[in-house]
């Protein structure tokens, strides 16, 4: 069983692939190769003096305590964001599945936040919770709670996790709703007749049947938390206070574009690339095996 012969001309498949290949080459392989090259050099910001240093940039980056700190920050941030965004979305989706009246309106409203750009989402949360001007920050402080994410690293972390998760809930909600709709009613009804309560029905029937979608969302949400949240962190905390919210991606930006250390920044992005490749490989190799595709 081969696909050979389905195309009338031998060149046609390559021609059809060409646009996608061109895009990948220009937007991925080219910059990635540049980063790899840059990571072996040490040069001044203007590129006037440049020197080959081998793996010195990598050695320096990996021995920096602040790099290990940002690795830790990234893990905490990504896990918390992915888990809370998915858990809340699942809860809302099962709720939405039950209501009869106004279901469409409810779903539409739930999907809206996804259309908000990360930087804007960050600004919204900043305006609400920034201690110098935020409405909610003012209310929190007036209850006597010492709300100060500008100095308290844990509070800053909670703030960016909330903003990042809030934005992603809509997307997850959409998929969970679709997943719930595809579960045959008969299965659930049969379980109900057998005397299974609502909670039991959810954990033994609904949740396992949602596994493929949950797995898909886990991949998407992890990637999101890793890469698409830069705008939120940039707008809300700028990596501070101290280095409490400096994720790996934010550190690449900060070292490269604020501190102008291109070699170190490039080395970090190469490491990041390796981490992502490894993470994806692990997810597809091991986690996927446990997923039941029904």
């Amino acid at each position, binding site marked *: 069983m081969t696909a050979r012969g389905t195309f009338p001309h031998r060149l046609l498949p390559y021609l059809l692939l060409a646009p996608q290949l061109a895009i990948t080459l220009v937007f991925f392989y080219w910059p990635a190769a540049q980063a790899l090259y840059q990571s072996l050099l*040490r040069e001044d910001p203007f590129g006037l003096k440049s020197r080959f240093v081998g793996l010195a940039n990598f050695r320096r980056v990996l021995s920096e305590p602040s790099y290990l700190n940002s690795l830790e920050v990234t893990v905490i941030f990504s896990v918390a964001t992915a888990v809370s965004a998915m858990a809340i979305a699942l809860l809302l989706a099962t709720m939405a599945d039950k209501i009869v009246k106004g279901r469409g309106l409810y779903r539409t409203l739930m999907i809206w936040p996804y259309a908000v750009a990360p930087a804007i989402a960050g600004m919204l949360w900043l305006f609400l919770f920034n201690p*110098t001007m935020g409405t909610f920050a003012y209310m929190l402080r007036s209850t006597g709670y010492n709300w100060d994410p500008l100095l308290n690293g844990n509070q800053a972390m909670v703030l960016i996790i909330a903003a990042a998760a809030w934005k992603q809930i809509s997307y997850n909600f959409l998929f969970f709703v679709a997943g719930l709709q595809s579960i045959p009613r008969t299965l659930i009804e049969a379980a109900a007749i057998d005397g299974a309560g609502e909670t039991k029905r959810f954990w033994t029937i609904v949740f396992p049947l949602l596994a493929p979608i949950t797995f898909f969302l886990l991949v998407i949400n992890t990637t999101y938390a890793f890469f698409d949240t830069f705008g939120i962190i940039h707008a809300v905390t700028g990596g501070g*206070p*101290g280095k409490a919210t400096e994720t790996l991606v934010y550190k690449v930006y900060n070292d490269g574009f604020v*501190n*102008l250390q291109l070699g170190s920044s490039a080395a970090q992005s190469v490491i990041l690339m390796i981490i992502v490749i490894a993470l994806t490989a692990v997810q597809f190799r091991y986690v996927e095996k446990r997923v039941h595709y029904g």
Partner: protein
Amino acid sequence: MSLRTTTAALSAGFLIFSAVPSLAVTDISWWHAMTGANNEVVETLSKEFNESQSEYKVTPVFKGTYPETLNAGIAAFRANQTPHIIQVFDVGTGVMMAAEGAVKPVAEILSMGGGEFDKSKYLPGIVAYYSKPDGTMLSFPYNSSSPILYYNKDIFEKAGLDAANPPKTWPEVFDAARKIKESGAAACGYTSTWLTWIGLENFSAWNNLQYATNENGLASTDIELTFNTEPFVRHFQNIADLAKEEVFRYGGRTSEAKQLFLSGECGILTESSGGLGDVVKSGINYGIGQLPYYPDLEGAPQNTIPGGASLWVFAGHDDAEYEGVSAFFQFLSQPEIQQRLHQASGYLPVTMEAYEATKASGFYEKNPGRETPITQMMGKEPTANSKGIRIVNMPQVRDIENEEFEKMLAGEQTAQQALDNAVERGNVAIQQALGN
């Protein structure tokens, strides 16, 4: 011909330039980082310059924040697509100076096209900051500011303080701040923008203390930070203590704290003189005082060092274009323009003539406190500690300082620990940036 052109330009705006192609207008691009009211000034100045003559046309392009503009310039240089003029903030000065061959000294530019460059026409404190060790002025000081003290007169009266006399020394400021909080006149006594620029860099110059070796980097790029000495530690421990008592409120790393003052939450603020526009606009009953100092320190108050930004010229353009840049800088140096800029924005005048003219016009009598940022900077002959601070990776060093301050204000470490850490980490970063 020239009269007709001018009249037409005035009535038809920039349409005239497309109407007279034979004149072959030379385009000059100007990348800047000015927003709001300051952006309007940029637009107006360019328009006025373009209308005042017909040979050159300056096109201002907004490139984002200060660091973003600097990055855009660096990227443009690497791609051989540089603008003629780029506005670089004070901390970027060291970065630009280290890029010899990428920039053309402004002293050279100003003497092109029949112009003449007379250094004595410009304010010495500002010229010194933007010059090489040998005295060559490298960039054109466009917007210079100096940190001052703002206070809310209504809050002062409510707290039973003398609203006509702002506190002059740091102990007085801390006392007043505590009184404001204790009396309930405001939720917070004192806040400050830019803890690095005001609390460390200007603090060292104003109190005549060493910030780093080799004249704070002006004599050589290979330096060691030294700001973990007693007066610095004492000052920051005072602030940390006030933060603990909730008398001092932290706003953020740059100018966010201004908001705390404008909203009436804090009674006293140390901020750039360039922030005056917003303070005036907010309509609060404010007063201005000079930057506080410690009276027991020898030589204090000395002089402050300028902040703000300057205009740099990229190398590699034609002489004809440089003549245009020169004409534009000469235009900006005119006393009337400088006077207007100074009076409207709170930024300092760049030339002596503009300063003298503003003085003679009685502006300072009518607006008490407005001369403070200038007298602070020019009051005394600068010492080795107060000429300025230059580090090749100043933005990174400030980042490190901010991180340590935040940990200190959160109560995680003492001022001594914060400053020791900042010095140690800063020195490592400087050596890395120097390529060692």
